[in-house]
């Protein structure tokens, strides 16, 4: 034999799975909600989504170029971050809001800590928290769905009593997403469909979203005075769906052990309910997930699974 044989340690075959495929699946899962956002909020939404995604991808490429690292923008992960960030911004925000957010998400939260897989917080959520703290007016200038951009309040703000005089939207509008709010968090049903797709493709396990949402449902029912209506609005309005399905399941910033994921999801649910019901702030998803993100190394450490054959 004159040619060279490849010698390597087993296994010699690999699954078709790849990082690109996983990230592309997340983008596909987010597409229906993206289209709904564009439908409800028109050109405003298009502007924000494009600005966020382009800024995220360009920032990633630039930083990797500068640091002389391989450019990995074709793994779709920057697209996912940009898209998720855009979902968390109201359609009326000026274009520079998503740009600053994306640059912060990619440069500070992701690349400074070592890039994909090393970020200890969800980049999109951390960026949203930063934007909300820095530009609270622009970040809460909600508009009604439609072309005219009439300002409105979110259902959660109305429910919390901060927007007196506003009418609560109907349940059907709430679930379809025909309500005021951020671009991508309004249509609960489309976000759930995307989530089912991710579970079907094996990208996420339903563990975290189901426990998170169920915890919020149970707690808001009990603590909210045993009102079914109150509970349903708490579950379907605001960022719970997008947070539970797409943000709390972020690989890098959530536990890897099944038991850890349960604790993580429970923690997110409890914090969200407490912030919403007792905090001075109608929405609590972002901060709950971010707080739990920080606890992940600890959770992982104390939830090491029992090894096969080990007596604990």
């Amino acid at each position, binding site marked *: 034999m004159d*040619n060279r044989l490849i010698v390597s340690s*087993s296994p010699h075959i690999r699954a078709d*799975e790849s990082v690109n495929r996983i990230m592309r699946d997340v983008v596909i899962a987010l597409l229906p909600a993206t289209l709904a956002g564009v439908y409800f909020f028109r050109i405003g939404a298009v502007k924000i989504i494009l600005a966020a995604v382009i800024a995220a991808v360009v920032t990633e490429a630039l930083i990797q170029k500068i640091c002389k690292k391989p450019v990995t923008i074709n793994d779709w992960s920057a697209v996912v971050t940009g898209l998720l960030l855009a979902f968390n911004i109201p359609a009326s925000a000026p274009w520079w809001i998503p740009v600053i957010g994306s640059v912060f998400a990619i440069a500070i939260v992701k690349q400074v800590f070592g890039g994909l897989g090393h970020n200890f917080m969800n980049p999109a959520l951390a960026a949203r928290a930063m934007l909300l703290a820095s530009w609270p007016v622009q970040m809460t200038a909600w508009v009604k769905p439609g072309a005219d951009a009439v300002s409105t309040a979110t259902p959660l703000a109305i429910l919390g009593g901060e927007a007196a005089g506003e009418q609560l939207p109907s349940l059907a509008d709430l679930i379809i997403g025909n309500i005021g709010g951020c671009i991508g968090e309004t249509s609960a049903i489309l976000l759930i469909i995307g989530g089912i797709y991710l579970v079907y493709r094996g990208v996420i396990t339903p563990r975290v979203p189901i426990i998170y949402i169920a915890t919020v449902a149970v707690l808001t029912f009990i603590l909210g005075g045993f009102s079914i209506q109150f509970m349903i609005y708490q579950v379907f309005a605001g960022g719970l769906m997008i947070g539970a399905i797409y943000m709390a399941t972020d690989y890098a910033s959530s536990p890897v052990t099944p038991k850890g994921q349960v604790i993580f999801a429970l923690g997110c649910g409890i914090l969200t309910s407490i912030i919403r019901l007792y905090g001075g702030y109608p929405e609590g998803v972002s901060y709950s997930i971010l707080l739990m993100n920080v606890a992940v190394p600890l959770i992982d450490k104390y939830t090491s699974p029992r090894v096969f054959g*080990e007596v604990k």
Partner: protein
Amino acid sequence: MNLLSFRGGVHPPHYKEATERFKVEKAKEPDRVAIPLQQHIGAPCEPLVKVGDKVKIGQKIGEAKAFVSTPVHSSVSGEVKQIARMLTPTGEVECIVIEADGLNEVHESVKPKGDIENLSGKQILDIIKEAGIVGMGGATFPTHVKLSPPPEKKIDTIILNGAECEPYLTADHRLMLEDPESIVYGLRAMMKVVNVSKAYIGIEDNKPDAIESMKNASKGYKEIKVVGLKTKYPQGAEKQLIYACTKREVPSGGLPMDAGVIVNNVATASAVAKAIKTGMPLIERICTITGKGIKEPKNLLIKVGTYIKEIVEQCGGYNGNPGKIILGGPMMGLSQHTDEIPSTKGTSGILVFTPEEARLPEPKACIRCGKCVDICPAFLQPLYISAYSLRNMYETAEKYHALDCIECGSCSFICPSKRPLLQSIRVAKREIIAKKRKTK
């Protein structure tokens, strides 16, 4: 059928279609064989012949001096040409090279040893030892050692492994179809040796014909139960198989006998039957020669010591340039850098990849997806063990139970970032064990 299984595992494509319907053919008589004096875990044996000696088929040519060691026998009749260290599938080992004379004379020691009924357990054990029988699933652990547990270990069950969970391989499958009686006979002999009255034969459900065939062959024996296993890798891994059949967990750091079980491969049982019935020691085995890099994939009955190159030639040769040659299956087999090496008692398969299939994937950063944790059949966290191993932090890797890794490779298989998980865990294991030896 109620399928048994374990928790974790992966579903690699089976790739068995290429050979699963091909009857086992007898390979061409080799002109020359190189028989390694060490084909198993344990001590090498010492040559009983010298250059120029005439030997016959079945003649013992290497004697085992240590307990964990087995003798080797000539697989051809002819003349000893050389005794030297040579390359074998597991590294450089002393080999006896014999040139065949084509007469195929059988040695006079090869004669029927009697029947299970009138042989004692001790006698059967001696036959197994003298016949040089080792575990034929790949690890080639001496069978007589397995069947001699210390008296304080109470064994109540023997499990025969017919799972053949490695993709591509069909050698055990064909054996179960073509000679199921020998498997049952060998199993009964082993049951007599360790004096147990319960046995399972576990077979993955992607081989329904094999399940059927073994059920028929074991009909008269109530103590033998043929069980269908879920087709999932590594269903044939010893500890996972024991769990699937008995729901017992082999304790961490322990051996199957600590769970009261002895596991043997179906091919090993068949070899035991042959040694008792005909007296022929283990000198040949069924091997699956397959993969896109092989022109005519086949199941061949090959003589131990036949060169891999010659076996491949009998299968139409290579399909273009071979990219990778693997002895065994794709999940746990050993890749070789040459085909000028002899086959051994453990050569269950010769798998040849094309250069495209052989190309190594580019590893990317770990994204902490947790898939390796989900599928690890030993319930480990491969991502952490691997990460600590890569940073030379072997003590931390040990705290994450690196030594409990069964090296099945499921983590590396599933990893979307194509990280060398098992490869780095192996390094950690070796370092930890080496350090333990030093401190002893």
